[in-house]
């Protein structure tokens, strides 16, 4: 492939990349993703796994009969 085609490909790819990035940034701004940070930070919690509770620990030691301690 000729150099000119690579330059064209590079500009097209790079331009597309930055256009998508700019569009994503604009979308985030218009949909309030960059303003309401408190709600965004708490979205990982819900009624099933609420905030304020730790959710992981080592399993208990196994008894010889195979039952959990």
């Amino acid at each position, binding site marked *: 492939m000729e150099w000119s085609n*690579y330059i064209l490909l590079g500009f097209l790819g790079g331009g597309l990349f930055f256009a998508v990035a700019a569009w994503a940034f604009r979308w*985030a701004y218009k949909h309030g*993703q960059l303003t309401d940070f408190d709600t965004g930070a708490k979205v990982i919690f819900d009624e099933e796994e609420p905030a304020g509770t730790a959710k*992981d*620990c080592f*399993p208990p030691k196994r008894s010889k009969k195979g039952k959990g301690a």
Partner: protein
Amino acid sequence: MSAIGSFYSSIKPGSSSDVSERAKLSEIDASMKWPALLFLVSAALWLLAGTFFAMVTAIKMTNPAYLADVEWLTFGHIRSAHLNAVIYGWSFNAAFAVGLWIMARLCHSRIRHTAILMVAGCFWNIGVSIGIFGIFAGDMTSVEWLEMPTYITPLIAFAFALIGVWAVIAFRFRQSSPVYVSQWYILAAIFWFPWLYSIAQIMILFEPARGTVQALTNWWYAHNLVGLWLTPIGLASAYYFIPKVLGVPIHSYYLSFIGFWALAFFSSWAGASHLIGGPVPAWVISVGVVASVMMILPVVVTAMNHHMTVRGRWNQVWISPTLRFVVFGAISYTLVSVTGAAMALRQVSEITHFTHFTVGHTHQGVYAFFTMIMFGAVYYIMPRLLEREWPSAMLIRTHFWCCASGITLMIVSLMVGGWIQGTQMIALKPVPVVVTENAATPTNAEQPKASTEQVTTTATSATHSAAVQTAPDQEVKLLPKYEFIEVVRNTIPWLHLRSMSGILLMVGHLAFAINFFWMAVKPKEQRDREGKPTLLVEENTQSVSAK
């Protein structure tokens, strides 16, 4: 058109009248069970294979005769097989499982038509298997990080397209309004990898560019495979699991956004810094150096955010298998990024380039950061997929301590050994040479002793001529202080240490694999006797102070 319409409605959550649109977490976990298990089982198997290849490679570094008469297992073959097995086998499969699971949970939507994801998983792993076989058989390319033969490219591309589309569908039909930062990272990574892979395949393998452009594209791809694929998935996991397990929101959601956009802007430029000193336009290198140093910004922001979230809750980190690994990985992200920024400086790169230091840096990023976070994620996800407990706490502890100490020993030995290697490779000494009409020859019989202080890489012979006594027909030249074989020999003790660290990692991986497959095939009766898994929130809810 009606077929498209019915397919569209079939992938939309809540399209059935008997289910609510916003799915419960347990329903989402159930919908992701088989695809996630396929990816995780594949990842675990590739991890074992990659570890075996790595051990053989490490032994060959200190004992070149080891398996040297088996043509399939020569150093060039098995080293590339190791790299591709751990990157495209272990890392990608783990990233698919963890990324899709987090995305589905944060979107609060069930994953529909999981059979297509299963097909994608099969295609991916068949592709990688053929690729690794091709490397052993001698079909490998000479392009680092893209060694698998080009005939597997369609399989890989097709599989990734299906997986990527499924992540986008989950996001499109999400049932939660605010988009969490982990979703940003995963979605971006899903778009970034096809861009990287297709450009690299076209410009290096299918329509090769001329000259050094291939090398530039190669390093742009290799650097960004870590920076724009593994890093976003790793950070998405850290941003999900740290606050989730602790039960507190991330310290600053604002900072997490700055970190994301800074990574998106600077990371893709940084690869060129790997070619410092190469026959590449200086401005291209300079752009790479500037971008690498600017990467400090997202790193500091992310490190501050994680540290402030964990601060005061270290006990909670210690009792959680997930957080032990994830926090180790998050700390390693800071270290690897700062090391990477330093290595991009010309004065540092002059020493570290072409040495084991770079290998240590790569392991710091791919293993100490990404892999450790993936281990933590697996410890959280598996009990929720299978609704059962990890069989052995002892094996989890063995896994953590072996891997944490093993990778630390590996990084230290490769970086210290690499630094010594680099300084010795560029060390010069002034030597008087006899000047003749055609050539200057060293006078080996009468080499004067020169102090180390007199030897610098930038010094000219004129600088030293005053310090070295020369005959009238002699002048001082700067020649290598160490012979190449001497430098190689000096690295051997460090390579032995690296092999020892590999043994630790192998033990850790075996402990992980035993626990993983034991859990997967545990008899149902035994599970029922043990009751509900303690890792699940219903069984183990410990109050923590939410700031």
